[in-house]
């Protein structure tokens, strides 16, 4: 203690005439640029996936429908509404926003007497900070929803190896790789609406994460008895609406589905699928053992109905067997799915052609209901000059004959017309046959569409290229060139026109850009159509039609009460759509035959 201790405190007086440091009115004080204030949401970018709601540990976010925002593929139509009575401004919602539509402005002062005003939908309920330039934006490497890219590319054979045989190219994930991929899923469920058969995608992906494969199989079979097949060749529309694609790659949903099926033994699958219900005494005849017919058969058999499936060819599977090459979908995989369908009591009779071996009339009188699911087994032709030559073939016919083990007279040089998956299938099949027979690949593929508009999967295009197939886009076939009665190639013109706003396309040609593609066989792989001749003239006339297809109600029932139709012939070509259709039709048939509507 000293004299200084008495005087020193008075130095405080030196601040007496300093200006005050406090802000007189803090309302309107600009916050730091990265301040976490009221939310902003770009509602055009937002897809309503609800990840923000899931992460919010305060339960401050509700997903609500908004007038003027339609629920559509890849967008639930819901938008987040935030209750600022609960929000703690942690911005985890911004961190996990899959589209980066949700941000926070740096505005934090808002005076309002009505407490309920602090619960609003950012971006919809207009606020002064909607256009604020500053605020919290997720930094670039701040990634909380896992890697944006595929964790592991599907292991597959190298081009040099695969071109030499028809062995399956894709190996399938192992457990570890599948878990890593499954981990990327945010379980928003937007994909479920897009899947034609509405598979429980987030739930079966969760089953992979949890290692519960029996549950996985049970979930798959709820909606899809063709899971081994769809796990390989599905058109996977689901992946096109996956929330993860806004950040990077969509989740490899198709491969994950296959992974579940790969992990479980045939016996275990049959156990999980279970036994059919007690016999009902009702009988259903199904014409065509493709995905639609067999799915309907599976559902109906499980409900206890006696189901007989008639197949014209020697093996079941329809276009999955006779249209898709073995290297994409091995035949034993088809056998596996079909075997499970048989295990619930479905009686599949092959080599029976309805209309020849048994009449449709006969089925009508012997069964309580008849379903025709014929598929699209006839190829369309271009009908350009020269296309009536014998060495101008249809892709579907060739593929069917290759599956049947026939010799198709492999050409040394081939030209394929078409840009869809069937065109890729025949081109790659020919390439393999050429490699085997002649040691070199000489296949040219020409398509009307430009590459970005190809109907084929990107993988197919890429892999075809790797296998040595020359792909020429925007080429319109003009003429098959014949010399001395032999096909020597195809003449094409450049295609100028592009797709219009509705995605429709009317090709116009630039005649000055003509090319000649040499080949001793020209394969037309364009559209397909159904052969409905089994209906006979009288029934065809009797039935109602809708723009070239059988007119059916929502349940697939035709204008004739005893007859249903399903699959590609009604919906267009797609395995999983055919499966979905099979379910719908089975439900309709079940309702009809159990309510005694029939007879």
């Amino acid at each position, binding site marked *: 203690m000293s004299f200084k201790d008495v005087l020193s405190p008075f130095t405080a007086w030196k601040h007496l005439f300093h200006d005050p440091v406090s802000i007189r009115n803090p309302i309107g004080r600009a916050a730091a640029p990265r301040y976490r204030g009221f939310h902003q949401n770009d509602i055009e970018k937002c897809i*309503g*996936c*609800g990840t923000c*709601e899931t992460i919010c540990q305060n339960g401050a*976010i*509700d*997903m*609500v*429908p908004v007038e003027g925002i339609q*629920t*559509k593929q890849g967008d*639930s*139509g*819901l938008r987040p509404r935030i*209750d600022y*009575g609960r929000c703690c401004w942690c911005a985890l919602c911004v961190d996990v926003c899959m589209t980066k539509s949700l941000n926070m402005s740096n505005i934090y002062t808002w005076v309002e007497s009505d407490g*309920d005003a602090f*619960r609003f939908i950012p971006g919809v309920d207009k606020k002064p900070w909607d256009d604020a330039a500053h605020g919290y934006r997720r930094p670039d490497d701040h990634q909380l929803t896992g890697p944006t890219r595929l964790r592991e590319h599907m292991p597959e054979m190298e081009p040099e190896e695969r071109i030499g045989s028809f062995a399956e190219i894709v190996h399938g994930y192992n457990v570890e790789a599948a878990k890593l991929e499954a981990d990327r899923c945010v379980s*928003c*469920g*937007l994909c*479920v*609406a897009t899947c034609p058969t*509405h*598979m*429980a995608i*987030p*739930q*079966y992906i969760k089953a992979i994460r949890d290692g519960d494969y029996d549950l996985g199989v049970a*979930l798959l079979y*709820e*909606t899809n008895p063709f899971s081994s097949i769809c796990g390989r060749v599905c058109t996977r529309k689901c992946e096109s609406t996956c929330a993860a694609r806004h950040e990077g790659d969509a989740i490899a949903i198709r491969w994950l589905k296959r992974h579940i099926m790969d992990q479980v033994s045939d016996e275990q699958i049959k156990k999980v699928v279970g036994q059919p219900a007690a016999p009902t005494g009702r009988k259903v005849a199904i014409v065509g053992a493709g995905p639609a017919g067999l799915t309907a058969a599976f559902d109906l058999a499980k409900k206890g109905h006696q189901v007989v499936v008639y197949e014209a060819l020697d093996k079941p599977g329809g276009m999955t067997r006779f249209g898709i090459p073995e290297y994409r979908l091995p035949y034993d995989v088809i056998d596996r799915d079909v075997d499970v369908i048989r295990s619930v009591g479905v009686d599949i009779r092959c080599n029976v052609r309805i209309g020849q071996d048994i009449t449709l009339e006969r089925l009508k009188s012997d069964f309580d209901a008849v379903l025709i699911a014929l598929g699209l087994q006839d190829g369309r032709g271009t009908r350009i000059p020269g296309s009536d030559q014998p060495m101008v073939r249809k892709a579907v016919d060739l593929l069917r004959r290759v599956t049947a083990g026939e010799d198709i007279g492999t050409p040394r040089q081939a030209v394929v017309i078409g840009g869809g998956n069937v065109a890729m299938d025949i081109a790659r099949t020919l390439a393999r046959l050429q490699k085997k027979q002649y040691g070199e690949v000489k296949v040219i593929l020409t398509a009307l569409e430009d590459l970005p508009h190809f109907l084929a999967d990107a993988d197919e295009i890429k892999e075809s290229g790797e296998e040595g197939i020359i792909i020429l886009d925007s080429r319109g076939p003009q003429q098959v060139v014949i010399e001395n009665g032999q096909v020597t190639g195809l003449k094409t013109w450049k295609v100028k026109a592009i797709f219009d706003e509705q995605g429709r396309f009317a090709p116009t040609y630039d005649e000055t850009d003509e090319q000649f593609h040499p080949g001793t066989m020209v394969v037309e792989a364009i559209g397909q159509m159904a052969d409905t001749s089994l209906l006979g003239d009288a029934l065809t006339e009797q039935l109602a039609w809708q723009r070239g297809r059988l007119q059916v109600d929502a349940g697939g029932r035709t204008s004739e009460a005893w007859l249903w139709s399903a699959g590609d012939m009604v919906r267009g070509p797609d395995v999983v759509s055919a499966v979905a259709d099979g379910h719908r039709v089975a439900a309709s048939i079940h309702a009809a035959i159990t309510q005694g509507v029939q007879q």
Partner: protein
Amino acid sequence: MRELYARLKALYPLGELTEQRKNLAFVTVPAAHLRDTLLHLRDKEGFTHLVLLTAVDWLEEGQFQLTYLLNNRALACDLGLRVLIQRDTATMESIHDLWPTAATYQRELREMFGIDFPGSPRIEEEFILEGWNSIPPYRRDFDTLKYAQEAYAERPGRVTHDPETHMRLQMYPGQHPAGK
């Protein structure tokens, strides 16, 4: 840490040593040997600082784990003693005479977990939860959300929609919801 474990193991029937870091390990001690082990560690091994005393509820296994975390400042290392006690009886010997501050931990454990420490000072006095009317709240079988919903009113006007369900109702109503 290994040597220390070897020395202790010679004296007391200890469980396996879990080396979490090079300066942090956990070991299970039978309840009957806790006091001796603590005394030995405090007086012979330099573990004079009781960092914390807390409990973990292993509800599924019917046990409470009491964790006594001790620190040796000179060696900069920590040893956690795990004592597993029966969940239904939930009683443990008090160590307030070894570290007076333990009395506070034990009071809290009795209130929050329902674990009794007979003889601990003021053990029966309420600590944090005056007028508590349910089971000890830090037990795993106490449902916080359920309690809050019963005890407090929810602010009106809140409703949310699951995207997947909403899309089904909007886009394909009437169809069987998969996986639900």
